[in-house]
Structure formats: C-alpha cells, structure tokens
C-alpha cells in the first residue's frame, strides 16, 4: 500500500491537533493555563472569533447576559459609549448602541467542526460515536489507569498500540466484530493513511478535517493522551501512549463498526459529499454578533478597570510608616492573600507585607520521608536540577477501609459489607452532623510534617540522586535569596522576624484539589519552599555574600517559614528553629496578630457563602469556615481564584489604601531598586503566564462550561485517578467545574506596573513569549508613573495616556459592615484613613 497522499502530511496534522487539543495535565498536576492557548498568537477578539467559528466554543457571555449587566449598571453607560465610539467612530455610535441594546440578532451559524464526520449520520444513518466511543474510552482509561482497577491492563511495558496488538493476538476474543479491521491492526505495514483512505476515500485534502472532527468529538480524552505523550512524568506510573496510537485504534474501530452495520458495502465519506464543506482553515468571515459581543466585553472590562485606575490615582498618599518594623511577611502573589495582607497591616500598622511567587525563587524537586517519587515544587515550565529531601522518622498514614479494594470482590466483600457497612452509616451520620478531618481529606498539612527536617545543604558525600543535586550550595542559595529580595524591593530596613508564608488548601471530596494549592509550586502547598528559603536566608555564609551584593541583613533578623491554609484560614509556623527567648516572645505576639487577621479574613470570605451568616463574629465564622473544608457535602470549600481580575506589580503603597475585594494578584516590586527593569522582566515573565493563565482559565470555564469548563461537578466520576468524566461512558472534562467559576466575572486580567512607561515597554520587548500576551491583548497592560501617578495603557505596541472617567470614588471606613451588606462583587472603594 504505497499510495501517495497529496495534501496530507501526517506529522503536520498530528502537530496541529496536539496544538489545539486541551492541554490539561492529570488531576494530580493540575496547573492553570490559558484554555485557548492554541489561539494565543492572534489578537484576543480575533482569536475568540476563530475559536468560536471553527471549534464551536462559546467565548463571551451571551448578548442577553450582557444586556442584563448593562441594565443592572454593571456595564457603565459612558464607558460603553466610549468603546463603541472608539471602535465604530462617532457617527455610528447611536446606530451601534441600538444594535447592542435592543436589536434582535441573527443566530450564529453552526461551527465547522463535526460537519464532515456528521455525514455518517446524514448519509448512512449511523451513530458512529455511540458505537465506538465507549469501547475506545474504556481501553484508553484501563491502559492509563493509575490505581482504581484491581486487575490491571494485562500487557505491561508496551506502548498503547503494541499492547492492543498483543491483546488482540493472544486472546480468543477479538476487539473487533469483523476480520478486516483485525487484520489491518495486526498488519505491520498498515498506516494511518490507509485507514483514512477507507473511511474518507481517496480525498487526502479531507483527511485533516476528518481527524479534527474525530478527535474533537472527544477532546477530553484526546487532550489527555496528547498531554501524557508529551509529559509522561505527569503520571506517577508512566505509560507510553501517543495521539497517533489513539487515532489508529479509533479509525480501526470505526471501520469495523461500519463494516458491521453496512455489511452490504459502503464508500468513504468524501465520495458522498455533494457540495464542498467549509474547511476549518478557511478564512473566518465577519460576524456582526461577534463584534457586538466584543464591544460589550470591553465595556464590561473597562467598567471595572476604570475604577481601579481611578482608585490608584486618587488614593491619598499613605503616610509611610516610619520607625522600627514589627515584622515583615513575604506572601505568594495569589489573589487569596490580598485581603489577608490588608488585615495584617490594619491590625499591626508597623508590619510590612510583600508579594512574590509562592515558590520563593527556590526551585527543586521534593521527596518526603517514605515517598517513592519526587514532586516538583516550582512553576510548571521550570525543570529544576535540585532535590530537597525530608529527613526524620517514617510516618504512619491513617487509612480508610472504605477505599479498600477488598470490598469489590464478592468473597471479601461479603464480610466487609456486613461489618464495615454498618460502620459506614455511622461515619456518614458523623460527617453530616459533625464534619471532621479524615484520611479522605486532602490537607495542606500532609505535604510536609511540621516536625521533620529538610536536607537543604549540599552534601559533598551524597551529591546526586537520579541526576539531581541534593541540596543547594552556598552561592546557589545566595543567588536565589538575592533574586527574591531584590525583585520585591526588600533590601533594607529588615524587621527582627521575616516570615516567608507559603500557601496551600484543604478539601475533601474534591478531585480538583490540586487546583486549590499554590500554582507557583505546580499545584502543591508552598510550605517546603517557605521553609527552604528561610533556612537559606538564615545562613551566615549566605548573608555574607548578600552583604557584598548590597543587601545587608542584620544579624538580629531571622527568617521563619510558615504555611497559610487558604481554605481553613489557618497558619502553621515552622518555628521550631526559633531558640532564642527574645524571638520566641516576639513571635508569640505576632502569632496573635496573624490569628486575628485570619479570623477577619475568614469573615471576608464568608460573605460569598450562602450557608454562613456573615453577621456573626469573626471567631464564629472562622469555625464554620473550618468545618466547611472537611464537609463531604460541600462542593465549594473555598472559591479559589474566582473573581480575579488584576495583577499589581509595584510597591505596597500603590494599592494599600484601596479596597480591591480580593480580586488582585499582588507582586511587590520597587522601581528604585530596579531602574533598568531587569528584575521586572523576570516578574513579568512569570506573572503574565501564571496570573494570565489563571485568569483566562476562569474566563473560559465560566463562559462555556460545557466545552471549555468541566460543567457541574456533582455528577463527576473519577477515571483512572487522572481525570473526571460524567457518568461512565462520557468524555473527560478538562477545565474548571462550574462550582469554582460561577461567581467569577469573565474579564481579562489587567496588569498594572509601577514604573516608567518607556522602561516597561523596553522590558516587555525583551521576551517575545511575554510580549505576545500583551501585544495580542490577552492581558491588558497599564503602567503607573511612580512619580506622577500618570496612567498609560499599552495598546497596539505603545503606551497611551489614560484619564479615568470615574471622578471621585467612594470612601469606606467600616469594612465589616460593607462585607455584611451583600454577596456580589463590590466596586473599588478608597479606604478611609484616620
């Protein structure tokens, strides 16, 4: 079979497919990313139009939803007028405004994806998906399974397709109904082109379209296979599978099914086409509806941005707290720390807080005691060369017999159901009336034992393990500590205690638990990093080097690692190392400050939760928040990054006086320490993809919870420990469940940098990857002149001045009573200073 297939290049098509398929890793390694990353080379609105037309995704809220927002004044009318005028010119403003608000709109044409393969139903009346998918999904799922099945896939150490071949050869039962597909599978020389020429006929120009139709009929499974192919380490028990294998098997199953159903013979789909179908690659025609939506979208976004920019300009200059600092806290830039830091600062005005990505610039693999694998603790794209080991006594994990596999065999199950069964009723009773921590809970504390030791120092005797250097050498430590401190601008005026606070989350009954943890630590808690960086910064040798480089950490200063559990609003301090009586006392005082801040933070969070009365005292609410995290029946232990909309890169003073309602990532940065923008580049390199990725994943999961989000999590069924599906035969559901995104307003991230516009411009141009985020408007970039507070917006490759239309923002004095007022997003307020 050596037919040439003009117009079809397998490698190219596979590459294209992999590019467009969802790229979400298995649940354990859940890391937020731009769901439509494949379109990121295009400007935002154009990309969305293309994704909508070709792949059929919903990419904006609906026109009705936007009209409702406008009616509720959540889209500012003046801003709407401005956006229309800017896009359509002053003359057409009235006409377009009518279109936006009142005109009946024509329905959007159906997406191009699926049209070719839809011919099976149209012409032959065959429901191919329902015959092929269940078997196909089962085979892939069983092959990839990480530990649900008791009887594993019987063929080991072979790639997927080879394993299937072996299974077919050495079995009395065939996967297929007929001979043809079986023989083709076993024939070494069968190529994908051969299969396609049967299915589609000799129309190579249609092959690509057919494969897109086929794979996007189950984008969840295909995406998972494609991700595991590229990153086999995302499964602890590795598998060799490739998209090519999957497609081969699927085509064979299709041929077999059609052979069976149309035993009297059939011809490939390409031959049945009377009129050519629009191809996926055809140019995207203009659509008025999409344009209307894009105008609404911008107006919706700028309604919020404008308040924020006005707030930054109007904020009364905070009197810079002088005198000695009580303590300094380094937090993750995470939006969930935003309100916590505000409370710390208001309870103890002498403290300072800083934001830096939660891996604290130390990147390594981590191996806990007894762990058989390493887990990566740094942003997902980084591959560390270091290994940090936990040392100490082996721990005993509590086990829960309900997850025991013995209950699934009829003989052991006979005993278990009649003994443990009654215990289950009691446990269920207990969890409903008095929820508590159990082995089923995914707790942030389990990540590392509070009382164990970490091997942070490089040991010349051991040196390496599996190609990783164990521990860090002194100069490696100094580089990392220096990098972190300089990037956040903390180079002098050190307080006696500096806390490095990582964060993690605790939840139960939550397959997406990793999405709740620290994204900068690859979806794990940041406790180890916080401890490691503190130990590094406490080393006299490291401090000596830092002193040479202009950072003078006085001997009176100590660094202490800590972990903030964002679900339970609890903190653990790794304070074992504090020996000195002086510090012990000091720390005890600070711990009290942290505690009251946590209570208040819990109260602020609680306003979004229906089941908690926000008018209770912070202590009472905090108790309910804790219960929530261990309740089996609570699908929203916390709301995670929902409502995120901003990322501020600048000094704390930039935003200290404005109430941002937990919507902002806060990255500390001092332009005076970095006049050239060198550290700024590193910050933006991380902030754009991390914060932008989180923001866009929330955006798309919110606007299309069917195809881009995971839908409601209530019916989810865990497949092979790597994904969730609806029911047992469904497609995998990548993206975020609707419970995480329902309160989220889908707007893009605005990244505000406190530096001179020309420096910012030069900085972003230094990295093409980072530049793409801004030039294509996937993240909106603004600069605030640190001296004049003038705002400039990055548009079409340059910065243009912007004057907020909000003249005077409201002041608030009492945050508590504001919180009790309602559940919705708040506008930006200025915090009244006394």
């Amino acid at each position, binding site marked *: 079979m050596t037919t040439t297939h003009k117009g079809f290049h397998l490698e190219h098509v596979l590459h294209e497919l992999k590019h467009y398929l969802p790229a979400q890793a298995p649940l354990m390694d859940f890391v937020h990313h731009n769901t439509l990353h494949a379109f990121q080379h295009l400007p935002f609105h154009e990309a969305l139009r293309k994704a909508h037309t070709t792949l059929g995704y919903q990419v904006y809220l609906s026109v009705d939803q936007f009209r409702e927002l406008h009616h509720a004044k959540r889209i500012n009318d003046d801003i709407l007028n401005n956006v229309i005028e800017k896009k359509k010119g002053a003359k057409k403003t009235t006409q377009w405004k009518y279109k936006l608000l009142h005109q009946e709109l024509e329905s959007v044409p159906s997406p191009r994806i699926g049209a070719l393969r839809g011919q099976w139903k149209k012409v032959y009346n065959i429901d191919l998906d329902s015959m092929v998918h269940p078997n196909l999904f089962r085979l892939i799922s069983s092959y990839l399974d990480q530990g649900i099945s008791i009887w594993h896939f019987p063929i080991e150490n072979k790639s997927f397709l080879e394993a299937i071949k072996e299974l077919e050869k050495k079995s009395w039962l065939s996967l297929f109904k007929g001979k043809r597909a079986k023989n083709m599978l076993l024939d070494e020389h069968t190529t994908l082109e051969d299969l396609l020429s049967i299915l589609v006929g000799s129309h190579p120009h249609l092959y690509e379209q057919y494969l897109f139709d086929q794979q996007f009929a189950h984008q969840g499974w295909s995406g998972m296979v494609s991700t595991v192919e590229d990153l086999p380490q995302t499964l602890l028990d590795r598998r060799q599978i490739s998209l090519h294998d999957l497609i081969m098997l699927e085509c064979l199953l299709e041929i077999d099914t059609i052979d069976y159903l149309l035993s009297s013979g059939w011809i490939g789909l390409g031959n049945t086409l009377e009129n050519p179908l629009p191809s996926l690659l055809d140019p995207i025609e203009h659509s008025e509806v999409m344009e209307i939506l894009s105008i609404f979208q911008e107006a919706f976004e700028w309604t919020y941005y404008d308040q924020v920019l006005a707030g930054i300009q109007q904020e009364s200059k905070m009197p810079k707290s002088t005198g000695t600092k009580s303590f300094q806290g380094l937090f993750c830039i995470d939006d969930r720390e935003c309100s916590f830091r505000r409370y710390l600062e208001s309870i103890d005005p002498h403290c300072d807080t800083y934001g830096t990505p939660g891996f604290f610039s130390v990147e390594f693999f981590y191996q806990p005691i007894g762990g058989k694998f390493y887990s990566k603790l740094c942003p997902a794209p980084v591959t560390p060369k270091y290994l940090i080991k936990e040392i100490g006594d082996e721990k005993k994990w509590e086990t829960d017999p309900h*997850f025991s596999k013995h209950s699934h065999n009829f003989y052991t199950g006979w005993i278990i159901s009649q003994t443990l069964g*009654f215990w289950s009723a009691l446990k269920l009773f207990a969890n*409903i009336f008095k929820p508590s921590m159990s082995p089923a809970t995914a707790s942030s504390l389990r990540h590392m034992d509070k009382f164990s030791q970490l091997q942070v120092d490089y040991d010349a005797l051991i040196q390496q393990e599996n190609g990783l250097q164990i521990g860090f050498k002194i100069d490696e430590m100094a580089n990392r500590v220096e990098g972190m401190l300089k990037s956040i601008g903390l180079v002098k005026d050190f307080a006696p205690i500096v806390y490095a606070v990582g964060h993690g989350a605790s939840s139960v009954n939550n397959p997406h638990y990793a999405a709740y943890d620290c994204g900068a630590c690859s979806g794990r808690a940041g406790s180890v990093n916080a401890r490691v960086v503190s130990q590094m910064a406490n080393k006299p040798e490291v401090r000596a080097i830092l002193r040479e480089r202009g950072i003078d950490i006085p001997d009176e200063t100590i660094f202490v690692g800590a972990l903030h559990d964002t679900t339970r609003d609890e903190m653990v301090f790794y304070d074992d190392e504090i020996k000195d009586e002086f510090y012990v006392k000091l720390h005890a005082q600070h711990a009290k400050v942290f505690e009251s801040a946590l209570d208040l933070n819990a109260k602020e969070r609680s306003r979004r939760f229906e089941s908690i009365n926000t008018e209770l005292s912070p202590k009472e609410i905090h108790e309910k928040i804790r219960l929530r995290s261990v309740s089996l029946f609570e699908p929203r232990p916390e709301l995670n990054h929902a409502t995120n909309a901003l990322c501020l890169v600048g000094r704390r003073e930039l935003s200290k006086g404005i109430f941002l309602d937990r919507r902002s990532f806060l990255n500390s940065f001092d332009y005076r320490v970095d006049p050239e923008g060198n550290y700024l580049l590193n910050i933006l390199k991380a902030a754009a993809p991390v914060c932008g990725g989180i923001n866009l994943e929330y955006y798309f999961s919110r606007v299309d919870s069917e195809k881009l989000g995971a839908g409601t999590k209530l019916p989810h069924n865990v497949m092979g420990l790597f994904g969730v599906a609806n029911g047992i035969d469904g497609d995998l559901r990548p993206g975020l469940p609707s419970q995480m995104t329902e309160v989220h307003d889908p707007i893009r991230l605005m990244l505000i940098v406190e530096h001179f516009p020309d420096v910012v411009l030069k900085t972003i141009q230094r990295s093409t990857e980072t530049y793409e985020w801004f030039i294509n408007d996937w993240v909106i970039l603004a600069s605030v002149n640190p001296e004049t507070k003038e705002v400039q917006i990055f548009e079409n490759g340059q910065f243009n001045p912007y004057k907020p239309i909000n003249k005077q923002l409201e002041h608030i004095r009492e945050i508590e009573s504001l919180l009790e007022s309602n559940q919705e997003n708040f506008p930006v307020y200025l915090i009244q200073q006394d």
Partner: protein
Amino acid sequence: MQNYLPIFILIPLAGFLISLVLPKNDERKISFTAFGTLGVQLLVAVLFVANWLGLGAPDWQMTGWILFKNSDYVFQLDFLFDYITSVYLLVGAILTFLVTLYSRFYLHREPGYKRFFNTTLFFYLGYCITILAGNMETLFIGWEMLGISSFLLISFYRERYLPVKNAVKVFSIYRIGDVGIILAMWASHHLWHQNITFSQLKNAELVHEHLQTHSFIGVFISLMILVSASAKSAQLPFSSWLPRAMEGPTPSSAIFYGSLSVHIGVFLMMRTFPFWEHQISIRILIAAMGLITAIIATGIARVQSSVKSQIAYSSIAQIGLIFIEISLGFEKLALFHFAGNAFLRTYQLLVSPSVVSYLIREQFYHFEPRDKTVEDSFSDKIQNTLYLLCLKEWNLDSIMYQYLWNPMKWAGNKLNFLTVKRLIGIFVPILMGIFIIKESNYFSNDWTLYMPIILGSIGLIFVLKSFTQRRSLRLSWILVIINHITIALAISFNESYDSKETWIYLSGILMAGIIGYACIMRLFRLEGKILLNRFHGLSEEHPKIAFVFLLACLGLTGFPITPTFIGEDVIFSHIHEDQFALAAVVSLSFILDGLSIMRIYARIFMGPNSKTHTEFSNRYF
C-alpha cells in the same frame, strides 16, 4: 396498630405534594420539606418498630380499599408489615434522611434543585408503597413509581445527551421487570382464582395445595418474579444498566443505584419466598443465577478504571450473594446483608470524589511497579481473554440491544411497506368493521377463538411502527393509542364481560392521548414541526407543556394516575390461562408502548437543545 400502616405512605405523600408547590428557587423551604418529611418518617418508624417489637413482632396485615371488583377479580390495596418490611423501612428512612441532608448543601445553586427533591420524595413514596404492599397489585403501584422516578433522576441533567440516553436505556430494562410482574399477576389470578395477599402465601398448606395441581403455572409465576427481580436488582443478564444509571448528582446515584433502588429486586424475592419455597428447581436456578452474577460482576468490577462503575459492579456481586442467601432460606442473613451493603455502597459512592487524593497519596508512598493479582496465575491467553470479556462487560450491554431491541427495530423496519397512512387507512376501517360486526354477533365461534390473537398481533404491529418511527411525532403518538384500542377489542372477543371494564381501561388512555395530542399541537404551533430523529431539549423553554405532556405520557403507559392502571390488570385477567401466545403478544405490546412513549418524551423535551447544539459535534460533554 396495623391500621396505622398507611401513615408511612401518607407522610412521604404529604411531603411530596408540599414540595411540588414550593417556589423554585427557595432552597431553604424545599430542602426543609424534604429532610423534614424524612425526619418525621424516621422518627415515627423507629417508634413504630420499637412498639411492634414490644408486641412480639407479629405479622400485621391490613386490608385497605377495594378499588375495583367484578365477579372474579378484585383490585384492592393491601398492606403488610413484618420483619422484612421493618428492615427495609428503617434502612430506607435512615439513608434517605441522611442523603437529603447531604444534598441540601451539595446541590446548592444547582438549577434543578427543586426537581431533584421532588423526584427524590416521589421515589421515596414509591419505595414505601412497595415495601409496605400486602399484595402484588399494591406492590405494582410502588414498583411503577420507582421506575419513573429512576428515569427522571438518571436524566436529571436532561440537557445533556448521555444521561437521557441512559435513562431511556434503564427505563427499557425496568419495563421488562414491569411486564414480568403483570404476567405473574395474570398467572396467579388463574392459579388462585382470587386476589391473593402476601400473608396468605405464608400459609404453606394453601400454597402447596394449589401448586400441586398446577405445577407448570407455579413455575411460570416464579420465573416471572425472578425476571422482574433480576431486572430491578441488576442481576444477569440485565446488569449493565446499573453503572449507566450513575449519571445524576452523586448523592442520588449513591442512594438509589448504590443502595435502595437496586435492592428492591431482593425485596421482591423475599416477599415471594413462601411461594417458591417448595419449588426446588426454582431455588436452584435462583442460587445459580446469583452465583454466576457474583462471579462475573466481581470480574467486571476488578477491571473497572472508573470509581463509580467499580462500586456499581461490586454492589451487583453482593446482591448476587444475597439472592443465594434467599434461595437457601437464610432470610435473616439476607436482610442483614442487604442493610450492610446498602450503607456501605452509599458511603463509598458519596466519598468517591476523594479517591483521587487518597489513592494518589497511597501510590506516592506505597507504589510497587506491578502488584501481583490472582489473574497472573492464569496463562496469557486465558488472562487476556477474560480481561477483554470483563472490560466489555461480557457484552451485556450490546446483548440487550442485539437480541432484544434490534430484532424489534428490524421487524419494525420490515414493515416499512406499511406506511403509516396505509396502516391507518386499511386497519382502522377494518377495526371499526370488526367492532360493528362483533356488536351484532355475526362472528362464528371459530372466529371468536382466533380473533384475539389476530387483533393482538395487529396491535403489536401498530406499536412496532410507533417504536421505529423516525420522523413523525404525531403518528407515533396516535399509533400507541390505536394499539391500546386494538388490544381492548382483541380481548373483548375472549369472553363476554361488562363493557364498563373496557371503558375503565380506555378512559385513561383516551384522556391522556387527547391531552398529549393537544400538547404536541401546541408545540408545533410554537416551534414548528418537530421530528423524532434527534433530541430537541425543549423542556427548558416550555416547562409547563413538558410537565403536562409527562403526565399524559404516564397516563398512556398505564401509570397509576388514571383508571387505566387498574383496567390494565382487569383486561389481563380476561386472558385465559392457556392463552400464552396472547399473553405474550399483549405484554410485548405493553413493553413497547412504554418505550415508545418515553422515547417520544425524551426526544422532544430532553437532550441538548436542537437550536443551540449541532447534532454531530461534542455531544459527549
């Protein structure tokens, strides 16, 4: 005391009715009604059972109302309370109470919040009627309610494709169970010549006396009961529906398909145990089926890579063992086993989302590259073959299609030459002719003998056409109505009886038929012509029409909301005990009627909305 038995039906009935009229988005009131109802029920049940135990746990029989009576047939409501009922009552009340409390928060903000609790309460009502029933007729009322509420719970996410498809699939299996019971009732009517209650079955002499003379019909009844119980309890060969029922929110899967619903077959077997106790061959058969189910379901459970299907198959395996226990006469053990299994599987399903973090942690700390399993001792070829068999669920799912529904579709398609116009054009005048001729007594005796089966077969053709109808919705609906009329006519040849009985049967059919037809016409006016070749998902846009049409569908399927439900049994009682062919044809008609109607409902009102979803892309969301 026994006269208070209906309280266990009235409490959930009251709760269900209240829940129907509550405002849609008042989560607090809705959930309060649900767990309040269950709380009261649980409390009353505990007190009642305690009192009953104090009195020495007697069997209490309560004769309720006679709904219909003629010379040789009585339809009456009967209740029975004994230790089987007490266990089912307590386990059901505890689990449903806990799960409604659980769902109160779990379903927060879900668009179908009210619908979920309505359906749950309706299910629970059906459950209580079933377990308190004192005779087959009463049990059948509850049985039907369980079926329809299951359909609604599985298709809870009615805007998606797979839940709706699976709901129809499960309903079709349940329908087989329903007809099993109808046939069992029919045969037992001829065996006893009176309405028999479950407590009379406990009279061993009476049973023995009747069975001695009619051993064949005895075996037939037992077999029908076994078929019904196996269908409802997902025993072989019906097992594959259970994992596919796990499409609703996790708590509903947990309580219904993990525990209560799936153990109703077990209940039926225990209830009828005194009847087949002395039929050794049946007992061996039940034990054998139970054993095979246990072994095969365990094999399938072992290869499952999704957590819910694994629990489903393990539960099936345990139920297989319970069947064995019942057949061996260990009823107390079976009850104990039922309770334990129900609690265990409910809990396992509820915590199933936790499996990811738990097992990944276990893997992280205890990973062995390759665990040895029993199967490793088999030779490669046996191992692979068995593995594939288990992975394909022993083809159970496709077998149902291949040998049950496909032949019917095939037959329906073979009748394509009979276009619907011809069918109605030819047969309707003929039917009317027959009716007139019959009324004027022109038929000879020979004709009278064969007319029922001939007409029954014609009726079957009608419904086959309806079932395989791909396009016209209206015709499909009308054909079902004509089928019922044909059956009524067919049986009227059998023996002369009061035409009032025919009208009892047809009154509900006609009423439901007309209401349904009006709904269809209204929809056509609003939406244009709707074809049956795809899902339309219109329930969101026309919730009221959807609700009324659902009631019409239920009426047309003989659901206990119209007199047709009683009429169906009465009509059946006029089929003679030697007319097995007629009984088969009529019961097949009933199965297909139900399927055809639920298919119509699903196609119009459920599935992805045809305006916003193209048919062939991404339906697997």
